[in-house]
């Protein structure tokens, strides 16, 4: 059975036929080719499939696509600016060497987008807790935390001006 899903993905209105049994991760990857959305555990434990739905980080592997009706979805593909340049958050991940195999990276970056976008300051422990829904099996957590911390600070500096 095919159902019509209308929503906004990375700023663009999208209308497509989906199978109501699909997870949002299925739809984003298979139908829209957004392969930054990784399928890791597929039971909401590893965070590799994290995307923002209406600005909130969720595990897209345990979210049915039919629930995304009329919602705004953001993936890593939607972060670059119009010239294809990396976003400040992506840049801090590169500069802090927070990427090893890269599988967990898109998910963590999406959580970081929500964290940075909150406009608040966080202690390192608070940040640790806020990214605790992600597993990095390369175990590069220190650099990941450094990157998220720096992204938060940098955005504050630029917004503060």
């Amino acid at each position, binding site marked *: 059975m095919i159902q019509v899903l209308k929503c906004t993905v990375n700023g663009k209105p999208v209308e497509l036929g989906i199978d109501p049994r699909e*997870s949002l991760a299925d739809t984003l990857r298979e139908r829209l080719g957004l392969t930054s959305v990784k399928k890791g555990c597929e039971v909401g434990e590893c965070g590799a499939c994290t995307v923002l739905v209406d600005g909130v980080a969720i595990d897209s592997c*345990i979210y049915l696509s*039919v*629930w995304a009706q009329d919602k705004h979805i953001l993936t890593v593909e939607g972060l670059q600016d119009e010239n294809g340049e990396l976003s400040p958050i992506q840049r801090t991940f590169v500069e802090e060497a927070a990427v090893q195999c890269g599988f967990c990276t898109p998910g963590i970056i999406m*959580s970081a987008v929500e964290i940075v976008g909150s406009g608040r300051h966080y202690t390192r422990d608070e940040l640790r*807790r806020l990214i*605790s829904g992600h597993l990095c099996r390369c175990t590069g957590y220190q650099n990941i935390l450094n990157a998220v911390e720096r992204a938060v600070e940098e955005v504050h500096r630029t917004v503060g001006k």
Partner: protein
Amino acid sequence: MYDIASIYEAKSVDDAIRALKEDPGALIIAGGTDVLIKVREGKLSGCRLVSIHGLIEELSGVVLTPGGDIEIGPLTTFRQVAEDPVIRARIPVLGQAVDQAGGPQLRAVGTIGGNVCNGITSADSASTLMALDARLRVKGPRGEREVPISQWYKGVGRVDLAPYELLVKLVIPRENYEGYTGHYIKYAMRNAMDIATLGVSCLVKLDEQRRIVDDVCLAFGVAGPVPMRSYGAEAAVRGLPVEQAVSAIGKAALEDVNPRDSWRASKALRLQLVEELSARALAEAARKGGAAV
């Protein structure tokens, strides 16, 4: 792709009840963080689902009634409960408890109603809702009824929901939280993304001098097949000075609980946790209430 036979998206609570009546074998799905994982594991393969995910207006949100009761819509996510100003001001222990379920992405989707309806003893909200003696309002074809949470759990994964019934409200009566301070301790192997080896929630009401335990409510998750209150321990320490109560509550609680050996932890460890964490939870709850312990 999930192995689901069908999914119906209910338009309202009444529509969901109607859909359940038409298809008595169908299951309710709310946040999906539990049901979808069971589908993935094969435990619910081929299930038919009635989704109430979209019934935000009817079933989500926290309301402080004019009488001072706190009403929580079952679709309120863990995150919304933890961030809600009414919860933070009046029953912070509940926010603290639900903030320990899974990880941030799961808490943004998983609901407090689902946590109560799946009937799981390790549910992070359960022991605190037991300590608060929450009332659960359910709606079925013949209207609404209210069940005290003490009579809600019927066995592992079974709750007092008749076919075609839906949880529509969690009510925390004013007299059950006013004047109390509380503390929840989740013991697990990891700080995030883990299931409680044991959960303890303790509410305490102190006398005016902050020295005597006027009342205490102690509840556990994973200390038995379903979440439970420890009425024996409560009676044993009621009226005692705080320090004496803290040293007595653990041993007294051992009389009430019935944990089991599982691959997660042995019965012996769980008993040790019951004894030790009861004392710690009471001490911390009393500290929040102004006691010098």
